[in-house]
């Protein structure tokens, strides 16, 4: 027993140091492409850390969104930068002693604060355990996300919509594809896409009782769409106009409609307990669709449109 604990502690220590080292490497690397690759690796290590901290839901989200989609977004943006920008020398490091000192002080102070926290604190776990039965789901994280603090999630879906609106107003359509994709990618896509869709469906279904849920499922679905886009599938041509917009707002709209309906009973987002499970599933399906399409659209970087639509 002793040995196992010691080993685990060593693992934790190594993981922590590895995270810090990777962060330093990615932030200080001369080559921006390398930095982005390191960032993806950093995301995967973070997912490992989440697992160690008994946060499988977060680990799934991090792996799919943090490492996967953010990485893809970074790569896509890097490709659009002028080429001489990509391996720019770092800023000169002279004269930052004041800043370094200040940041050391901040880190030390925060470390002291964290150290001063009590060894054990229940947080809200007792309240969650007491109310889980009436929440409609068995996974406490899903219960918090979609029931106890569902209002946060409603606003968060709006943040995604906001970001998409911003990207659409700023983005520039790339007219031509640079090069045809190789056979490896095509095969990979053919193999992976159905798998990813299956995984997404499983995650969505499992979210009620086990780790998983709308965000993770949406992110995996988005990953599938990104792969298809990369492989040259003309998704942007298929998904346009009102159909696309309806998919994008499916999640927020369902949420707002539900909020409005519950408001008729004078309590915002208070689900009747006997229907809570079904309502949450409905919300999750709609939110998964929206999140997937939104993330894929964010990756695309501009507003896809049919030929007849005006600019």
């Amino acid at each position, binding site marked *: 027993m002793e040995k196992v604990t010691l080993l685990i502690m060593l693992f934790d220590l190594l993981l922590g140091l590895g995270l810090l080292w990777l962060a330093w490497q990615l932030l200080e690397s001369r080559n921006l492409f390398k930095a982005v690759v390191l960032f993806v690796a950093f995301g995967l290590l973070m997912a490992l850390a989440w697992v160690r901290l008994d946060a499988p839901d977060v680990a799934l989200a991090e792996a799919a969104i943090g490492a996967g989609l953010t990485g893809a977004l970074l790569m896509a943006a890097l490709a659009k930068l002028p080429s001489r920008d990509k391996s720019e020398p770092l800023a000169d490091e002279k004269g930052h002693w*004041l*800043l370094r000192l*200040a*940041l050391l*002080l*901040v880190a030390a*102070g925060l470390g002291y604060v964290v150290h001063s926290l009590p060894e054990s604190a229940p947080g809200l776990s007792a309240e969650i355990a007491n109310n889980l039965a009436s929440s409609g789901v068995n996974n406490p994280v899903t219960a918090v996300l979609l029931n106890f603090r569902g209002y946060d999630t409603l606003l968060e879906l709006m943040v995604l919509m906001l970001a998409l609106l911003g990207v659409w107003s700023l983005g520039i359509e790339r007219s031509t594809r640079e090069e045809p994709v190789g056979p490896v990618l095509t095969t990979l896509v053919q193999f992976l896409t159905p798998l990813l869709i299956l995984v997404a469906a499983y995650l969505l279904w499992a979210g009620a009782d086990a780790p998983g849920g709308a965000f993770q499922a949406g992110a995996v679905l988005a990953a599938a769409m990104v792969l298809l886009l990369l492989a040259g599938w003309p998704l942007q041509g298929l998904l346009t106009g009102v159909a696309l917009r309806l998919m994008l707002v499916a999640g927020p709209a369902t949420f707002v409609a539900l909020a409005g309906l519950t408001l008729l009973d004078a309590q915002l987002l208070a689900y009747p307990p006997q229907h809570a499970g079904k309502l949450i599933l409905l919300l999750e399906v709609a939110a998964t669709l929206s999140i997937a399409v939104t993330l894929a659209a964010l990756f695309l970087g501009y507003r896809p449109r049919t030929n007849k639509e005006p600019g």
Partner: protein
Amino acid sequence: MMNSDPYGALLWIVVGWPLLLAIPAVRRCLPMADYFAILPALLLLLLPMDFSSTLSWLLLGTGVSIDGERRWILATVVLIWALVAMKRRATPHTTPHGQNTFYLLTLAGTLGMVMASDRVGFFSFATLMGYSFYGLLLWGQSKPLEAVRRGARSYLICLIIADLLLFEALLLSAFNPQMEVSRLYLLMVCGAVVLKAGIWPAHFWLNASYRAASPLSALLLVLPVVMALFALLRWLPLGHVDDGVAGLLILITAGASILYAGWRFVQRPVQGERLAWLSLFASGWVIASVGVGLIEPLWWLQYGTLIYPLIAAVAVILLMVALLRPPPASPSQSGDSALWMGRMWIGCSSLSCKLFAGYSLCYKAGLQRAKQLQNGLERRDLIGLLSNWRNATTLFVLLGIALAWLVN
């Protein structure tokens, strides 16, 4: 006093009616709005009793009142406006349509000043009157001339400074009642009045305005002088304060004004200017009597009430002269006093710029170095330093540390 009081309501109508008429849509429904605007004031003048009214919700509680002293000034104001209205009727083509609003706003401000029972209200109405008079100066002309603009701009500068002085005096008196009669307060009020009434050495705006004034605006120019003198009486607790030094300073200013105005008057001035010197001459005497009142409070208590008829008389004389005045000569021969003021203004601001940029530091390092430093400060000054991302965010970190450090 109760608001249901019909007389109290009359007081508010006197002020509110011209304000209402200032809205063009309302005014168009009435023929002869100029006369109608002063009708309530005339009515008030004919009522033989004193009364007041206070509204608790207005400006943290302000009010209006009428009494014997105010009646003199009110009568003067009504006279001025009646004359102006008549003159406007006689020469309708010289008054563009847009003028009416400023005209009525000025009237409302003036009436409010006369009747305001506390200093906050007085100050508010004075501001209204001042700025709308500025508009009137400019728009009163069918064709804004360069000289008119110059006079108006000088007036505006005086107005801003005077309002600030009055505002600070207001604060002093409101929060430190025992300091009410401090010398600082006296001097601030007097300074403001000197600026607003165009007393020497701030006579340039009056001078420049008169020089380019049409017969109509010559009549109107009597107004700010009378109101400024009235402000002096309302704001100084004359008869209850004994301050020889302040009194002496005022006397000196008054004496200088009288002598200067007299000297310029006999110096064959430009035609329009004669009235300006006359005005300065007359208001100099009023100021002088206030100065005497400060030195000899007992004298003031005995004879001080005579000052109101005196002001009214001065106003009537000025009005008579203005009415008899021939139309102005061509305004090309603009004088230089307004220019002088403008130059001083620019000089002062650039001087303060230099002071701010650490001029004293430059002086020590020698002239050459000073030039370099000044150039450097102008090109890459504090703004650059502060808006640099790196410096700004470092400050952010430091602020966070400071907040956490200082708490408790």
